[in-house]
C-alpha cells in the first residue's frame, strides 16, 4: 500500500542540475554584460541597466501567469480523465503562479527605482505600472487561496477557477487602465517594430531575457517538485493511516 512512485526524480536530476548550472553561469555573464560591458544610455544614463532586470521580469511574470492559466484550464477539463486526477496541472499552476508573483514583485521594485531616476518619482499612475500592481495583488490572492487548508481536489478546482478568471481579467484590466492613463515608455522589446533600445543594449536585454527565463524555469521545476513531495508526504501519511485502520480491527471482526 505504501510505496513512493518514481522517487528518483523528486529532488535534483541531471537535467535540472545542468539547467541550474547553466542558470548560474548565465546570471554571472548577465551581470557582467548588464552592469559593466553594456554602455550607458544617452538619455537615461546608468538607469537603463535597471531595464535588463525590469523587462525580463515582467515577461516572466506574464509567461508564468499564462502557464498558470493554461494548466488550470487543462486541470478543469482533464482532471476527471487523468490517472492523477489532474494533480500535475494543479502543481504546475501553483508553482508557476508563485514564481510569477516573485517576478511581478521584482518588476515593481525595479520599475519604481527606474522611475525615481528617470521620472523623478517612484510611482506614476501609468497604465503598465498600475496593471502590474493589480496583477501582483490578484495573484497574491491566488496564492492565499491555494494556502487554505482543503481537500486537494477542492483546492485544485477552486484555484483553477480563480486562475482562469484572473487571467481573463488581465486584458480587461490592462485595457481599462491603459485607456485611463498612458504615460509609460513604449514597449522596449517588441516583435516587428524597431526597438527603441538599440545595439549592445538591445542584445544585452535580449540576453537577460533568456537568462531570466532559464532561472525562472529552474525555479518552477523545483517548486513543482516541492509541491509534489509535500503531496507525496501527505499521501504517504494517509496511506499509512488507512493501512493501520484497515488492520486494527481484523482480529475483532
Amino acid at each position, binding site marked *: 500500500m505504501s510505496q513512493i512512485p518514481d522517487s528518483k526524480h523528486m529532488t535534483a536530476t541531471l537535467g535540472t542540475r545542468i539547467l541550474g548550472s547553466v542558470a548560474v553561469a548565465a546570471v554571472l555573464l548577465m551581470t557582467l554584460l548588464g552592469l559593466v560591458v553594456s554602455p550607458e544610455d544617452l538619455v537615461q544614463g546608468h538607469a537603463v541597466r535597471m531595464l535588463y532586470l525590469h523587462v525580463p521580469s515582467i515577461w516572466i511574470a506574464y509567461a508564468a501567469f499564462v502557464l498558470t492559466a493554461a494548466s488550470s484550464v487543462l486541470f478543469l477539463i482533464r482532471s476527471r480523465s487523468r490517472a492523477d486526477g489532474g494533480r500535475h496541472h494543479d502543481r504546475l499552476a501553483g508553482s508557476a503562479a508563485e514564481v510569477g508573483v516573485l517576478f511581478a514583485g521584482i518588476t515593481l521594485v525595479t520599475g519604481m527605482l527606474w522611475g525615481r531616476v528617470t521620472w523623478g518619482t517612484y510611482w506614476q499612475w501609468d497604465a503598465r505600472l498600475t496593471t502590474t500592481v493589480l496583477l501582483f495583488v490578484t495573484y497574491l490572492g491566488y496564492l492565499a487561496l491555494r494556502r487554505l487548508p482543503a481537500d486537494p481536489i*477542492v483546492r485544485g478546482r*477552486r484555484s483553477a477557477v480563480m486562475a482562469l478568471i484572473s487571467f481573463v481579467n488581465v486584458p480587461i484590466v490592462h485595457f481599462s*487602465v491603459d485607456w485611463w492613463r498612458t504615460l509609460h515608455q513604449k514597449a522596449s522589446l517588441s516583435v516587428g517594430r524597431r526597438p527603441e533600445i538599440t545595439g549592445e543594449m538591445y542584445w544585452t536585454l535580449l540576453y537577460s531575457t533568456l537568462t531570466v527565463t532559464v532561472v525562472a524555469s529552474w525555479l518552477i521545476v523545483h517548486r513543482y517538485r516541492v509541491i509534489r513531495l509535500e503531496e507525496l508526504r501527505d499521501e504517504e501519511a494517509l496511506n499509512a493511516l488507512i493501512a493501520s485502520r484497515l488492520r486494527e480491527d481484523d482480529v475483532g471482526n
Partner: protein
Amino acid sequence: MLHEVLLVARKDLRVEWRSKVTIGQVAPLALLVLVVFAFAFDANARLLGLGAGGLFWVAVLFGGTLLIQRAFDLETDDGNFDAFRMSTIGAPSLFLGKSLGVFIQVVLLELVLGPGVALLYDVRIDDWFLLLAAALAGTVAFSVCGVLWGVMAAGVRVRATLLPLLLIPVLAPVLLAGSRAFETAFGVRAEAGWTWASVMFVIAAVHTAIGVGTFGFLLEEG
C-alpha cells in the same frame, strides 16, 4: 431553469425582507462612508464634486462586499449548501439566482447611496440615461463577480479577510469604469462615458459566462 433562478433569488430577497440587513445596516454604513470621505477631503466641495462618481463606487464596493459575505454566510451558517448539493437545482441556476438576489440588494444600496452622494457632494446630473445605464452595468458586473468569489471564500474560516482580497483586484476595472462613466454623467469630465459603460457590460458578460460554466466545480466538495 429560469424558475430555479427565480426561486433562489426570491428566497434570498425574502431573507433580506425578514432580516433587513441591507436596508437597516449596510446602507447606513455606506452612507457613513460618504461622510467619512468628506473628512478625508476636508469637506472641499470642489474636490468632492469632482470625485463624487468614484466615491459612490467605492462606497458601493464597501457595502456590496458586506452583502456578498452575508449572502454566503446565510448559506453556510446552518449547512444550507448541503441542502443545495442534495437538491435538483443546478449550479448555473444557483449562480444566477444568487447573483440576481445580490443585484437587487446592491440596487437597494445604491438607491440610498445615490441621493446621499447627490445631496452631500452637491452633484448635478447632466445625463440621466448614461447614469442609469452605467449603474446597471456596474451593478450587474459587481454582482456576478461577487457571487463567483463569494462562493470561493464561503465557509472558509478566514472568509472575512479573504473575500475582499480576492474581489477588489478583479473589480478594479469596474470601479474605474464606473467612476469615469459617472463623472461624465455628472458633467465633470468630458469623456466617452458610454464607452466606459460598455466596458462594464463586457465585464459583466464575461464573468457571467465564467460563473455559469464553473460554478459547479466550486460547489462540489471533494
